[in-house]
Every structure is written in structure tokens, then in C-alpha cells.
């Protein structure tokens, strides 16, 4: 999937991946896509809830071994 910005949140724990993602999205423009890599297992549910609350679209969630990959489209 194409993306405009990447966030490495590997090794970070709750709530840092969400806070960093929020910051990254704020620096992007509407319609751009952010790719996030994380290792926190809690981030799967957290990013879904974050997307639902903020209106940014969670395009996909994938588990790759012990890593999680998210694509979020900025509102």
C-alpha cells in the first residue's frame, strides 16, 4: 500500500504509539496515508478505537510475526 509518511512505534508501549500517531497525523494533510509499525499487542484495539473516535480512517491492520502494521488515512 502506498503511504505518505511512516511512523516507527516499535518498542513503545501504551499510550505512546497513539500519541506519536496523533502528532504525525497533525503534520499531514487531508487524504494522506500514515504507515505505523508497532510491537505493542494492545495497539491493535487501540488504533481501531483511535480511528473511530477521531474520524481518521483505519485502512488496514496486519500482524507480521511480533509486529503490527497499520495504515491510517488522515481525515
Amino acid at each position: 500500500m502506498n503511504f505518505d509518511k511512516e511512523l516507527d512505534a516499535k518498542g513503545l508501549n501504551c499510550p505512546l504509539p497513539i500519541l506519536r500517531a496523533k502528532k504525525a497525523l497533525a503534520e499531514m494533510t487531508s487524504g494522506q496515508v500514515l504507515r505505523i509499525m508497532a510491537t505493542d499487542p494492545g495497539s491493535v484495539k487501540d488504533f481501531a478505537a483511535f480511528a473511530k473516535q477521531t474520524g481518521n480512517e483505519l485502512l488496514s491492520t496486519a500482524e507480521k510475526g511480533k509486529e503490527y502494521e497499520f495504515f491510517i488515512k488522515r481525515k
Partner: protein
Amino acid sequence: MNMPTDQAALDALIRQRLDEILPQKLEELKAAKTPSMTIIATKGTLDWAYPPFILASTAAALGWNVSIFFTFYGLNLLKKDISDLKVSPLGNPGMPMKMPFGPGWFKGINWNIPNLIQAGIPGFESMATMLMKQTIKNNGVADIPELRSLSIEAGVNMIGCQMTVDLFGFTRDDFIPEVKEYCGAATFLPMAQQADVSLYM
């Protein structure tokens, strides 16, 4: 005289229309409202510094309006230097005492140290604090100064309890300049009344 019948028919019609329109209208109003949260932070130890700052920074990231009212020992969390917050396992049976280094089997041991010994060893609290800070680091959990600045950056309102400032002999100069206001219960309660979520920690 058919007036009362007309009136009853009109009332029935209004009731019916209200039932149809109101739920949707309420949903719309709810969706348009920015959620808000108020937190009362009352503890000043390293472990208890986490809940208010984690929830406040996360809520702010979700777009909520957040205020934290720091009172009693919670006021410690507004001091300029909070790198020296401590945690004590003494008298806290809920706190596991595990080593953040060494092989897996060693890290898994829960060191059940009797209170009497904990209280008698000089520097035990500092050691426990050091171990917890290392555990926090190993697990990729943010440290408290970082979480506090992230909260401030995200627009969380920091409010100090004026009564506690006076009671504990602090001056406003002891605290970070980002503290928005110093006030009392009468100012905080109406804020909490308006909030969707209000938590005491």
C-alpha cells in the same frame, strides 16, 4: 364543543412526531459535542503519576477536552522537576518486586521482602524506585516527565489546588508555568458537572 378532542388529537400527534424525531436529534447533538474529561489527581508517587497523565494525554489525542485538578500529594506532579518521584513497596502488598535484569528465571522471581526489613534498610525506597524506572525503560513505557510534556503539548489543562499550595507551604514558583490556574473545589465542581467523564485518582 369539539375543542378537547382536537387538543387530544394534537397532543397525540406531537407525541408521535417527537418519538420519531427526538432520538435522531439527540444522536446528532451527541455527535457534535466534543467529549470532555476531568480528573482529580491526589497522589504524588512515581506509580500513581501514570494514570492521570496516560489517560489525559490519550483523551487529548482522541480530541477530547481534558482538565486535571491536582490536589494534596498530586500537586507534586506539577513541580518543575519531577525526575525524583519515588515509589515504595513498603506496605504495598500489590506491588511485585522483580528484577529488571538477569536471565528469564531470575527476572520471574517475586522478591517477597517483609515490611520490617524493607523499613530497616537505608535507601530501600531509592533502590525500589531505581528498579522500577529500569523496568519502565525496558518495557518501552514513557517516563513521567515525557508524559507530562506530551499532555501539556496536547492542550490538557493543568489546574492546581490553591488550598494545598498554602497548606503544604508551596509557592506558585515551585510549579511549572503551564499551570493554567489555581483554584478550589467550587471552581472544579462545575467543570466536572459538565464533563462526560470524571475520574478520581
